[in-house]
C-alpha cells in the first residue's frame, strides 16, 4: 500500500505571548518572557512555585453563547487557534462536514478549572443539585477536541490524545498516521492546556517546578542552564491543519513543511524520570521512519523543560544521536511549559523559524550546565535556513514522542 504524504498548511496559536502565531513569534524574536508572579497562589499550602505563564483569554464572546457554554478556557483557546489555522490555510470550510476532515486535540487532563469547580461544588456537602449541565463537557479529557469539532461541524475522526506533555505532538502524530493511511484528507490537530494552581501543584509535589525565582519570574525556567531548578507551567492552544499532500497541492495551498517521520514510545522503566536510552530510541526511530540521517537534521527543538533530571537525559540522548553538530534550543524560557499544548505550540514556532530562516536561542541559558554539555546549544539567534528539523516532546509516565519535518 502506497502511503500518502502529509503536509502542514495552516497554523494557529493562543500562547502566553499573545493571540496568534505572529504574537508568538514576535515575543520570541524580542526575547520576551511571559512568565509572571501569580498573586493568590500563596493561599495553596505547600505550593512552592508561585510563577506561571498565563495566556490571554480575550474576545471569547465572539463565540456564540450556546457554542461557548460547553467550553472552559482551554476549549476557547482551541477554537480561536483553530479559527486562525483554518483562515491561514485557506481551507474550504464547506469541506469540514464531509467526513474526510478530522480533529485531534490533546491535553494533559481536560479542563482543570472546571474539574476544580466541580470538586468545590460537590465535596463540601456531597450535593449534586448545584452542578450545571455543562460541567461534564468542560471537564473531560476530550473537551478541546469535542468543542472544536462541534463548533466547526466536523464529522470526521475526532480524538483526544492524553499523554501529559507529549499530548500535543502525539495529536499531530495521530493526524499524520490517519492521513498517511488515507482515512482522512485533513485533520485539525494540536494541543491545549489551561493553568490552575492544582496543575502546577501536580509537578510541585514531585519537586519538578521552579521555586527559586518567585521574586524574579522572567529568569525562569532555565533550560539546560547551570541554575535551572524546574519547570514553569503555561497555558494556551496550538492547532495546525495537517493535510494530504496532493489535496493541498490541488488547491494550491501554502505548505509550511512535510511531516516525514514520527515515533512515539514508552521507556518502560520509570513513571517520572526520563531515560536517556528511551529518548534516543524515540529520536532514532523518528529519523528512521523519515529516512533521514542525523547529519541531515538542521535543527532540534528540544523538549527541555528545565527540570534537573529531564534536561540532563535529553542532552545526553541528543549527544548520543547527533553528537555536537546540530543546533539545539528549547523555547520554554519564553513561555513556560504549556504541557499538553507544548509539542504542537513549539512545532508551530519551529516551522516559523524554518520559514523565516532564523533559529531562536534558548532563553535564560546563560551558563550551560556541566551535565548538559556536549551538544550544540543555541545561546543567540542563528541565521540558518533549516530544511529538516526534529521536534521532541516527552511526558510524565515515561512517554516520548519525536517528529521530523522537512521543508519542501
Amino acid at each position, binding site marked *: 500500500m502506497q502511503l500518502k504524504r502529509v503536509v502542514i498548511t495552516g497554523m494557529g496559536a493562543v500562547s502566553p505571548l499573545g493571540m496568534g502565531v505572529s504574537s508568538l513569534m514576535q515575543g520570541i524574536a524580542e526575547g520576551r518572557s511571559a512568565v509572571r508572579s501569580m498573586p493568590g497562589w500563596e493561599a495553596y499550602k505547600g505550593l512552592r512555585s508561585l510563577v506561571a505563564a498565563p495566556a490571554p483569554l480575550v474576545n471569547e464572546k465572539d463565540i456564540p453563547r*450556546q457554542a461557548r*457554554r460547553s467550553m472552559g478556557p482551554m476549549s476557547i483557546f482551541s477554537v480561536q487557534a483553530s479559527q486562525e489555522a483554518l483562515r491561514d490555510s485557506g481551507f474550504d470550510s464547506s469541506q469540514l462536514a464531509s467526513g474526510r476532515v478530522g480533529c485531534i486535540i490533546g491535553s494533559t487532563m481536560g479542563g482543570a478549572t472546571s474539574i476544580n469547580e466541580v470538586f468545590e461544588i460537590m465535596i463540601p456537602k456531597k450535593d449534586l443539585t*448545584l452542578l*450545571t449541565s*455543562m460541567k461534564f463537557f468542560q471537564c473531560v479529557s476530550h473537551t478541546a477536541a469535542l468543542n472544536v469539532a462541534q463548533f466547526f461541524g466536523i464529522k470526521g475522526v475526532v480524538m483526544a490524545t492524553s499523554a501529559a506533555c507529549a499530548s500535543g505532538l502525539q495529536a499531530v502524530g495521530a493526524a499524520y498516521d490517519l492521513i498517511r493511511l488515507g482515512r482522512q484528507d485533513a485533520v485539525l490537530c494540536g494541543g491545549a492546556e489551561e493553568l490552575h494552581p492544582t496543575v502546577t501543584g501536580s509537578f510541585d509535589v514531585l519537586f519538578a517546578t521552579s521555586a527559586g525565582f518567585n521574586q524574579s519570574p522572567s529568569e525562569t525556567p532555565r533550560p539546560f542552564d547551570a541554575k535551572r531548578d524546574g519547570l514553569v507551567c503555561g497555558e494556551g492552544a496550538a492547532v495546525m491543519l495537517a493535510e494530504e499532500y496532493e489535496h493541498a497541492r490541488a488547491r494550491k495551498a501554502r505548505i509550511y513543511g512535510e511531516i516525514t517521520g514520527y515515533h512515539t514510545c514508552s521507556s518502560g522503566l520509570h513513571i517520572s524520570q526520563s531515560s536517556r536510552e528511551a529518548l534516543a530510541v524515540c529520536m532514532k526511530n523518528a529519523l528512521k521512519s523519515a529516512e533521514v540521517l542525523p547529519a541531515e537534521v538542521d535543527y532540534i527543538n528540544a523538549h527541555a523543560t528545565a527540570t534537573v533530571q529531564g534536561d540532563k537525559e535529553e542532552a545526553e540522548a541528543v549527544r548520543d544521536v547527533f553528537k555536537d553538530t546540530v543546533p539545539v534550543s528549547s523555547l520554554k524560557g519564553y513561555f513556560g511549559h504549556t504541557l499538553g499544548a507544548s509539542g504542537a505550540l513549539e512545532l508551530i514556532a519551529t516551522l516559523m523559524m524554518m520559514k523565516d530562516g532564523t533559529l531562536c536561542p534558548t532563553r535564560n541559558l546563560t551558563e550551560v550546565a556541566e551535565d548538559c554539555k556536549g551538544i550544540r546549544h543555541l545561546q543567540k539567534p542563528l541565521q540558518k535556513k533549516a530544511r529538516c528539523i526534529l521536534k521532541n516532546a516527552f511526558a510524565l509516565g515515561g512517554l516520548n514522542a519525536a517528529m521530523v519535518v522537512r521543508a519542501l
Partner: protein
Amino acid sequence: MTEQDVIRKTNEVFEESFEIGKERLVPEAHIFNDLGLDSLDIVDLVVALQKKFGVVIRSDERVQKIRTLGDIYQFIASLGQERTDRKDA
C-alpha cells in the same frame, strides 16, 4: 419577597447565565422560541434559580410546564406563597 423582587432576580438569572439583554425579558417571552434556550439550558436555569432564590425545584414537576418568563415569575412567587402558607399553618 415582592413580585418586583421575583421579576428582578429572575431577569438577573437570564442576563447572567444566558447573556440575554434586558429589553428581551418580557413576561410573554417564550423561553425556547423567543429567548433561544434549549433542554440543556433548562438544567442550568434550574440550578441558577435554585441558587438565586435558595429553593430546591430540581424534582418539582411544575418546572416541566414552564414555557414563558411569566410562568417562571408565577412559579417562583408560588413557592414563596407556599412557604408563607406552611408557616401560617
